[in-house]
């Protein structure tokens, strides 16, 4: 294991790593532009066969490109921020982004590339990063960081990161990490997020919390009844369901279809089935927890037992499941590529019931004006991302309504003293 990724067993080891970072962040500054150069090279180095099997690697490579990140930096931190310049504001004042210091990252355990994604957000703000790596993601993270080391011969970024591998249960190590940081980016499920939020952070520590959320998809009648577009739309839905085994906050758990006289949702789900089968052939699961298999079997059975009007499509294995019924309530998510398709008479019905737990709304709406109305309604009911079907996982700021880089910088205003 390289020295950047460390198996940690004591709070002292956490403090040591943080002290190393503190020295670097106090002694040197880095502009987003310099950071981008290394990230671009890193992205290129990730194209080889060693990392090809890591889920999300294609997306990570795209994320690390200058073309992706430069507009984000400019939008969040302002013109000139790329080169560490002050941005003129109004009158005599100008603004500039400064790092908060050391940013601690607590990624979720279900997204292989998330430790890296979160870390890059901290680095682009000029921060040093202390990243807790869940044990299950250690090997993938090790491979990814190995490529960074190759791409960063001057140590511009590698001196500013330490990745700490330890078990979720080690509260003493979480505490030590929380005490060492000036900001925290926290990702994950309800229990994990609640536990991390309650750690003894310094009173000045910034906190950006992402998750837990679920996501839904919706199609108006004109979209799903359009036979010429059906296959492509179903392919997009399948893509959104497949990524991250439907365990991400941006994964659609339910698809609402607006009912249309003369058109059968049964026909639509048959097309969806074909798309699911095709996606499964391309991206079959390699392993599976028995607990998830159990949950999928339970979801299938309880759906069909509880209402004889419900129907379902599924293969003999746990590969995927489509549950079809009526209603505007979001059923409890099963995950594991189990999509509930619900017919509603008007898409406003389910949107009116959203409670803030929904992060992303994937849409296919034929009428742009109607889409505006529905988007506004969803946004006012707590939805933070409203995107086209097929793009529900495209990671970009704002995420959960929060800017990714700006959340971990101080925007300093200088009002010139001369009249």
């Amino acid at each position, binding site marked *: 294991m390289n020295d950047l990724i460390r198996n940690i067993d004591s709070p002292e080891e956490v403090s040591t790593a943080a002290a190393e970072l503190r020295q670097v962040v106090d002694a040197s500054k880095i502009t987003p532009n310099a950071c981008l150069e290394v990230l671009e090279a890193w992205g290129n180095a990730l194209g080889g066969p060693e990392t090809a099997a890591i889920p999300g690697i294609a997306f990570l490579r795209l994320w690390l490109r200058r073309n992706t990140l430069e507009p984000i930096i400019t939008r969040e931190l302002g013109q000139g921020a790329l080169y560490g310049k002050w941005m003129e504001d109004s009158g005599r004042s100008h603004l500039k982004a400064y790092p908060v210091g050391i940013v601690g990252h607590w990624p*979720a*355990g*279900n*997204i292989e590339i998330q430790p890296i994604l979160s870390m890059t957000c901290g680095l682009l703000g000029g921060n040093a990063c202390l990243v807790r790596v869940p044990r299950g993601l250690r090997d993938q993270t090790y491979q990814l960081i190995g490529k960074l080391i190759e791409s960063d011969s001057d140590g511009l970024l590698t001196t500013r990161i330490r990745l700490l591998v330890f078990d979720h249960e080690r509260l003493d190590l979480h505490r030590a990490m929380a005490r060492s940081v000036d900001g925290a980016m926290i*990702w*994950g*499920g*309800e*229990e994990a997020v609640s536990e991390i939020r309650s750690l003894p952070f310094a009173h000045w520590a910034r906190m950006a919390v*992402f*998750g*837990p*959320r*679920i*996501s839904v998809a919706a199609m108006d009648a004109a979209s799903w009844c359009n036979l010429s577009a059906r296959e492509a739309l179903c392919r997009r839905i399948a893509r959104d369901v497949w990524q*991250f085994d*439907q*365990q*991400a*906050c941006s*994964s659609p*758990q339910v698809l609402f279809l607006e009912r249309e006289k003369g058109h059968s949702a049964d026909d639509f789900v048959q097309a969806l089935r074909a798309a699911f089968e095709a996606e499964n052939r391309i991206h079959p*699961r390699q*392993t*599976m*927890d*028995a*607990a*998830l*298999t*159990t*949950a999928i*079997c*339970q979801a*299938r*059975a*309880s759906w*069909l*037992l*509880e*209402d*004889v009007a*419900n*129907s*379902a*499509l*599924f*293969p*003999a*294995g*746990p590969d995927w499941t489509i549950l079809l019924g009526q209603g505007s309530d979001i059923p409890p*998510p099963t*995950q594991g590529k189990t999509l509930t398709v619900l017919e509603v008479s008007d898409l406003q019905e389910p949107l009116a019931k959203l*409670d*803030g*737990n929904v992060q992303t709304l994937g849409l296919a709406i034929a009428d742009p004006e109607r889409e505006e109305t529905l988007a506004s309604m969803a946004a006012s009911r*707590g939805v933070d991302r409203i995107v086209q079907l097929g793009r529900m996982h495209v990671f970009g700021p704002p995420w959960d309504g929060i800017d990714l880089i700006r959340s971990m910088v101080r925007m300093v205003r200088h009002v010139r003293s001369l009249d």
Partner: protein
Amino acid sequence: MSALEARIDELLAIPPYALSPQDRELAFLALLKDELEYACSRNAGYRNYVRHWPVEPRAAPKVADLPYLPVSLLKADPPFALVEPHEIKKTLTSSFTTGQTPSRIALDSPTARRMSKAVAAIVQDFLGAQRRPYLVVDVPGSVAQGPEMGARGAAIRGLMPFATEVTYCLRPDSTGDLVLERDKLLGFAKTHRDSAVLVYGFTYILWQYLVRPLLAESVSLEMPNVHILHSGGWKRLQDEAVDKKSFNHGLAQVFGCSADRVIDFYGMVENVGVIYPDCAEGNKHVPVFGEVIVRDPLTLEPVGEGEQGMVQVCSVLPTSFPGHLLLTEDVAEIVCRDGCRCGRRGIGFRFVGRVPKSELRGCGNIRRTREPAQ
């Protein structure tokens, strides 16, 4: 008696471990298909489930292709039954801890009768037909008369046909905890020292209330002809770092018998009438009126010899609830497809543990709706 019930009884009349896997499948598959059809005729929801199964049951070439229910679907109250409420004679409940929901198994008279007959056939194969004094390491209240009976009560009662007399050696104290009735136990041991004796207790109860205290005092009951059957989970014992070997040796020491007289059996109320005692080789076998399929969690396909997976239990015994094909939350390993050295035909398997608790993971883990701000 209906034709279906008569066919179940025919299968019950066959010695439980006599058929080869091929002959068993022949006898079993056709009957199960008819039972599924019967169950569908009794419950519209179940019919809807079977109708959506990827393999049409009538056309299924093997038992493993038939529609199975996850066992948790039997955690319904009122119970998920195939008979009218007035036909339910007894409801069995699975063991559960605070906050958990138990399974509720509706038994009508014919199912209850078959359950008793089936357990007797299995136990007879292991212990012989002889009746003997029966020592129950539990309280008499475990088999209290009433509309509901727990897993412990069902297991105790299942062995009653082998009893000439029944002695319970625990009693509840004022706090509801169990206490060993030492004089009663010692009296029983003295009276039946040289006889063949049957003992039954839940695994952790046997250990906690009988073996551990008597071991500490080096008490031996000197009952060399005893057979000790036990069932129930190992979790509490594992928490105390007690493995099967030390458990068996502890029991053998206390009863003054050889360790091979301790027989662990796997069973669950949802699979009424079928119990799976360990054979002399340490394997569990399936009687002719049941089947066990071990499925790969990745594909749900049956696994091969030496492989582990999720346990599906199958039984032709129930007609009062849909317990014919149940996917459990247990994990087992297939040891052999046939030919165990103990002489019992059919698969031999070993229980491995429980499927870890199912939970949503990661950033999509939402367990509750949000409360509106006050």
